[in-house]
């Protein structure tokens, strides 16, 4: 592999130079400022309590999914008919449903299926998308063109509809929903990874490494990947939130696990018949979904900011 970059039109070269000069000025000013700033800094969690809360929320629901019995002793499947449709109380923090099942237990146990699907979906997108983006951005040329046209096409179909088309072909169920949602996120991962690789690949320090004789593979491993990984990590957090939304929406529409297995989306849809009488059946599981997604977004923003700094 030679180090010659493709001949670029001078205009764009000039643009790059302009941007570089800007960067230089700002970086210079920032650098000088940072260097002089006094060393005593508060720990991150004191300065950003909302971020701490977001991490706590995500950690909590992951713990629900891993060891649900620690958080609730009640069965998510078998109800006590006498206790049906009770509002939130000390015994039933989230109330009970029309079969007298404890809603909190169903939400805690439901996190297992929902988060399984979410994590699987993000992993599919992360692995497949990053691989495509990495290859496209580093090899460039025809490979890049083909890969990006495919990504364009995937992006032209709204993610939810693409997932639904895949479900039509694959059938229903938690894992199939996960695969369908995961394939829908491949395009996002691919384009972010590609653009990061292109950006980092064009960085002067990467050329400097090559010009000092470092092999292409070493450049990729030591310089390109570590610097490109940050934004991809931030995207993973963001996509986690989006996948929670997509998985619950598909479950709400009835494409997830068959009843009585609890999933967050199907819990909300199950409460639809009691909207007028039992508000908690839709409100509380939905609130959990919203809190998790909001927390994932908050974490994604923090990661993004850290990589930008």
């Amino acid at each position, binding site marked *: 592999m030679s180090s010659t970059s493709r001949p670029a039109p001078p205009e764009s070269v000039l643009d790059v130079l302009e941007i570089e000069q*800007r960067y230089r000025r700002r970086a*210079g000013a920032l650098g000088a400022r940072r260097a002089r700033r006094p060393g005593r800094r508060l720990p991150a969690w004191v300065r950003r309590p909302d971020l701490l809360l977001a991490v706590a929320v995500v950690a909590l629901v992951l713990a629900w999914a891993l060891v649900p019995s620690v958080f609730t002793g009640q069965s998510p499947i078998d109800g006590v008919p006498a206790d049906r449709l009770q509002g939130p109380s000390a015994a039933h923090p989230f109330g009970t449903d029309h079969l007298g099942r404890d809603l909190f237990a169903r939400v805690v146990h439901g996190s297992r299926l929902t988060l399984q699907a979410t994590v699987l979906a993000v992993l599919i997108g992360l692995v497949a998308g990053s691989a495509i983006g990495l290859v496209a951005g580093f090899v460039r040329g025809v490979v890049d063109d083909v890969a990006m046209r495919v990504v364009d096409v995937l992006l032209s179909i709204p993610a939810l509809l693409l997932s639904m088309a895949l479900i039509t072909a694959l059938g229903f169920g938690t894992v199939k929903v996960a695969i369908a949602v995961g394939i829908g996120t491949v395009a996002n991962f691919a384009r972010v990874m590609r653009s990061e690789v292109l950006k980092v690949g064009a960085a*002067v320090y990467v050329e400097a490494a090559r010009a*000092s004789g470092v092999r292409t593979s070493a450049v990729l491993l030591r310089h390109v990947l570590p610097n490109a990984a940050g934004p991809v990590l931030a995207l993973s957090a963001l996509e986690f939130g989006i996948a929670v939304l997509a998985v619950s929406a598909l479950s709400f529409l009835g494409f997830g696990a068959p009843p009585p297995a609890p999933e967050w989306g199907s819990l909300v849809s199950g409460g639809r018949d009691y909207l007028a009488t039992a508000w908690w059946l839709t409100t509380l599981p939905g609130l959990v979904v919203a809190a998790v997604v909001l927390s994932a977004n908050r974490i994604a923003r923090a990661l993004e900011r850290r990589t930008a700094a």
Partner: protein
Amino acid sequence: MSAPLLQVSDLRISYGSGSHRREVVHGVSFEVHPGEVVAVVGESGSGKSTTAHAVVGLLPASGAVDGGSVRLEGEELVGLPERAWRSVRGARIGLVPQDPTLSLNPVKRVGEQVAEALVVHGLARGAAARAQAVELLTAAGLPDAGVRARQYPAELSGGMRQRVLIAVGLAAGPRLLVADEPTSALDVTVQRQVLDHLEHLRRESGTAVLFITHDLAVAADRASRVVVMSQGRVVETGSARQVLTAPRHPYTASLVASAPSLSSARVTALPRAAASAVPAPAAPAAPVGRAAAGAGEPLVQVRSLVKEFALPGRGRTQRAVDGVSFSIGRGETLGLVGESGSGKTTTARLVLGLERPTSGQVLVEGRDTAGLRGRAWRELRRRMQLVYQNPYASLDPRVAVGETVAEPLRAFGVGDRASRRRRAAELLEKVQLPADVLERRPAELSGGQRQRVAIARALALDPELVVCDEPVSALDVSVQARILELLVQLQADQGLSYLFISHDLAVVRQISDRVGVMRHGELVELAPTAEVFTRPRHPYTVELLEAIPGRRALEEVP
């Protein structure tokens, strides 16, 4: 003596809030009288730009004036409410900003942007404002102003954009114009034209100018009085001539000493053993290189090098490098000078093999390297290395300095981990960095220190040729001087050859044995340094020489 137009007294400005609050301007005082040009000179971090922004009331949100006063025609500006500021800005104080590329709105026609300055102060509207904008642009020296006024910033060159910005600054007829590094982003010849024209306009309108610059020579050329700032304080104020010829403050003296355009002496190396001794005068220090250069085959020969880039559109190309030939001897420094777009950087990249020439040859010890690939191309790295312009971008922010320096060794499998580490420490010592830098990351270092790290990396494999692409243009002058000294010292110690690329003729003079002048891809002149400066043959070289600032102040009778 008239009453001052602008009176800044004991001005204190700080940035940040709470425990991060930090004062950056510590009680600055100076005056500008009607019709006078006052230059504020300082390096980055001196607070000169912050002071200028306080004068126009445009400090960034995190900045605030803590004390002191800024009086315009006797009226206090500090603490003025935003609404009142609006009738001051533009109408009474104009601003010519720093960066002509970014300081015009890309989606509005330039005429409209000039007219806006009239419209907001109710001086003209509609067609009348547009007509007046064309007049202002003509006055600012924009050719075909009627046509240009209907164009967008992207259609104008940097020099033209700066003229538009001057028209904007003067549109509403302010009595004071604050010019914040108005030409730093421009090529020297354009810079000279723009500044000449600004001076002409100022004479006609009687506007006073507060001129902010990092370049002492430019300041001395253009201003009647110079205010020297350092670390948020005014260290010296005086006439341009006095500051240049008889600086009172040691900081000013060091600034004068390190300004490349004010000295013609070549930077010389000290014998290692006698590093503490008084430096010998410039003349006898015959550069190690020149003696060696005569003997034997040159290290690098470049023959009829051509590089074409494809332009957008069918089959159109642009010649970035057009038939360039030169050679670099062992231990010699060849300087390549040219303005932006002259092809000097592309030439350097061709020499290194980072670009492939469209035609022509690059011979290293007589062997053509232009077509090398793979292994052979990598082997070339042992002999030729590169130091980049921008030390903020050329070091991987995630990698510790020691590893960066040792990376070429690792790449070629030189030694084991421990020996590479020792070598990295040696190299850092050689570039005069303390050993504890080894573990640090680039962000913790200053610009000058980073450039030293980049030089250490370039030296790791003991190359014969080091290509320096504008290695000091991103640095403050005092730092510049030290990096140049280091480069010369290293050359003397190791017999290196340099290809030294710069836009700044004055810097090239300080370090080169021979100088090549490039323009539009062609090498228009190539001669020993002294000859280029005393008997330039090409008219363009003459033009470049005349554009070097700092001559007028010394020549003119005050």
